[in-house]
């Protein structure tokens, strides 16, 4: 078998992925193993985990592919400083030593991290957006498609349109730095007091509470959207090289004050800005999507890049865009680019240094439900629990499900750790915290007591795929929780008087209040028996007892923590939060029976 290892990292969200004869065998984010959220370090643990899952060593690899061209990126960095001077001195003094300290010699770095790598094993380099495009198209179910990748920046490109056909990706056109939708969204993320490269989805969650009255100002002064789908940023308002905030004094004067510090309260102004930048991003993306359709004439669209994690925009692309079908790489950010780099090397033509392998698209997709990470054996789970002095019962699968469903019906919050770990930012029912969506106070309770995060953050429903249409206005499936759709009319409850700002959170708007956003939308995960059999069985069980085929599904972690990986991580998180029940592998644990009230945490807390 030919094994190809893909690597991404050294900027944010490091990851590794492994192919065996083109099949995706494993993919892991470094943060899940190192316990440091958005870990950007070279992904040594993730690489080892991928090799272990396949039962091979680095000596068995046929190629290693890195997700960027480091020298091209370095030269772009230098050129940007030349273009931006005399501003940017501090950023230069921080960035350049980092580059000279090992980021340039990636071949040397990879070989020293993998001493068993054969001397003749090639180390290949895709471009950043080629890796994103490959991660979007090659695992998709489409034989041909338009490919759109949108992020902060790669080498020069921030947005690309390509055409995918068979095993070929043909890049057509791109938008280059500094004109970047990802950069623009990150600037607002930082301005509203959230961390760049991880707080963007918080800003998206905040948007429905605000009014869009900054949209025209934004479009006139900060970003111009053109007829042909392209856009340009006005750099008089932004500072793309700033280290803390990406906005400057002129921006602060125009938008009502200095950036919000994370510990300061959210004001109406922040809610309105969140809504406004969301509206602008959606308009820009719809323009890009229309352009991609014009350029390719395809009926299918594949999306990747960090901006493709904006599931509200994705829902609009599906509903209002010109494409009939949409497939989004579940690890759309830079972690997924590790997988893309490996796939680009595998299918890349021989004259470019690839393997020239053909591609046969699968009817669903090639992501294996997104469950590409490690899994512990029941014995390993019990050994961990024993080491931590936990109190548990080992149950047969049906009994475990029965007990979990009983707990959920009783209004308890359940930690659910089963099977292989997810690859990508969403927990899809293998490393999840579950709750009953019919409870009106479940959202606040789970946010404040279990996840220790902002009460405005909405949760997502996991629904049996075959009953999704009864509850949500969603055409097609959403197995990776990457689409937002309105609640179906029959489930809506009219609101007599609309409250203001965050008070809107308390108003019940549907029969599933804990997962319904204030604008009546939901971020849906459809669960089918092929991709996700264990979670499907649990939902079926819950449906049989309650008639409701929906559960709240949120990632198993607390604020500042990466999603849990092992049984040990899960037990520590269970003890240190207010989760009532933990089901990890075959083991069932109840909070009141545990000896510990608290345990040292297994992660480095990253501030917002």
């Amino acid at each position, binding site marked *: 078998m030919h094994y190809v290892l893909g690597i991404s990292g050294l900027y944010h969200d490091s990851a590794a992925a492994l192919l065996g004869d083109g099949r995706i065998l494993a993919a892991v984010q470094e943060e899940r193993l190192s316990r440091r959220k958005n870990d950007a370090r070279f992904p040594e643990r993730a690489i080892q985990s991928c090799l272990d899952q396949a039962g091979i060593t680095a000596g068995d690899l046929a190629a290693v592919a890195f997700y960027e061209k480091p020298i091209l990126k370095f030269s772009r960095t230098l050129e940007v400083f030349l273009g931006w001077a005399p501003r940017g001195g501090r950023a230069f003094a921080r960035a350049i030593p980092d580059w000279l300290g090992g980021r340039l010699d990636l071949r040397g770095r990879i070989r020293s991290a993998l001493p068993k790598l054969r001397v003749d094993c090639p180390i290949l380099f895709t471009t950043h957006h080629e890796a994103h495009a490959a991660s979007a198209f090659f695992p998709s179910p489409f034989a041909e498609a338009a490919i759109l990748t949108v992020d902060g920046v790669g080498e020069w490109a921030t947005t690309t349109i390509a055409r995918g056909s068979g095993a070929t990706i043909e890049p057509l056109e791109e938008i280059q730095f500094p004109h970047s939708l990802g950069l623009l969204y990150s600037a607002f993320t930082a301005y509203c007091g959230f961390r760049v490269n991880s707080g963007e989805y918080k800003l998206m969650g905040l948007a429905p509470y605000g009014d869009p009255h900054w949209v025209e100002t934004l479009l006139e002064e900060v970003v111009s959207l053109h007829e042909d*789908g392209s856009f340009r940023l006005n750099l008089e308002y932004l500072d793309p090289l700033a280290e803390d905030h990406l906005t400057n004094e002129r921006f602060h004067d125009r938008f009502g004050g200095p950036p919000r510090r994370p510990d300061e309260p959210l004001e109406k102004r922040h809610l309105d800005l969140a809504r406004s930048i969301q509206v602008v991003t959606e308009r820009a993306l719809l323009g890009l999507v229309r352009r991609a359709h014009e350029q390719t004439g395809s009926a299918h669209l594949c999306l990747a890049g960090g901006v493709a994690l904006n599931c509200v925009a994705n829902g609009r692309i599906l509903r209002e865009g010109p494409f009939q079908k949409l497939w989004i790489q579940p690890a759309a950010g830079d972690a997924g680019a590790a997988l893309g780099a490996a796939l680009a090397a595998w299918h890349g033509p021989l004259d470019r240094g690839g393997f020239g392998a053909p591609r046969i698209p699968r009817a669903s997709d090639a992501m294996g439900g997104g469950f590409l990470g490690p899994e512990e054996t029941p014995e390993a789970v019990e050994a961990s629990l024993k080491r931590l002095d936990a109190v548990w019962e080992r149950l047969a699968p049906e009994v475990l499900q029965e007990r979990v469903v009983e707990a959920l019906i009783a209004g308890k919050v359940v930690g659910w750790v089963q099977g292989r770990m997810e690859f990508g930012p969403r927990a899809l029912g293998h490393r999840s915290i579950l709750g009953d969506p019919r409870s009106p106070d479940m959202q606040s309770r789970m946010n404040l007591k279990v996840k220790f995060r902002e009460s405005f953050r909405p949760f997502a429903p996991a629904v049996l795929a075959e009953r999704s249409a009864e509850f949500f206005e969603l055409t097609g499936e959403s197995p990776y929780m990457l689409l937002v759709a309105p609640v179906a009319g029959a489930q809506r409850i009219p609101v007599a008087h609309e409250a203001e700002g965050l008070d809107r959170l308390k108003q019940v708007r549907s029969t599933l209040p804990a997962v319904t956003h204030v604008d009546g939308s939901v971020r849906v995960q459809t669960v089918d028996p092929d991709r996700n059999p264990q979670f499907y069985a649990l939902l079926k069980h819950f449906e049989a007892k309650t008639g409701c085929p929906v559960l709240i599904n949120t990632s198993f972690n607390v604020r500042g923590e990466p999603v849990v990986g092992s049984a040990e991580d899960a037990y520590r998180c269970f003890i240190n939060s207010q989760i009532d029940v933990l089901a990890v592998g075959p083991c069932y644990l109840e909070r009141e029976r545990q000896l510990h009230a608290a345990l040292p945490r297994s992660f480095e807390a990253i501030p917002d």
Partner: protein
Amino acid sequence: MSRPETIRSLRDRFAIGASLIPPVALLMIASRAGWVPGSPRAYLAAMPVVLGLGMLFPIFVEPWHRRFSRMRAWLGGRLVFLLFLGVYGVAVVPMAFLMRLVGQRPIDLSRSGSSWVRSKGFGSLRDPF
């Protein structure tokens, strides 16, 4: 999946022991100037001793090793930062102004017109550039 790194190879042990030598060397220099008690010879003799102690009993010496490493990294980081700030002022800024004088600016800051650029292809996978 969340294991602390506990490997103690010979290399790790040597690094822990060796990291104690520079502070002793500083003490030796200070003693020569008469700022601290003790003879320079005694400090010189202490150097192989701390190296050996570090290698034999890394667990006792590690807290000091960590403290010194942090201090060294902090100092090194500050020095490198200042050095590169100087490079920026002396080399990058003048070069940027010269380029602008001859009408060149490597980043496109204009606000009008399409920003689409025809793709030049992905290039060879073998090249890091």
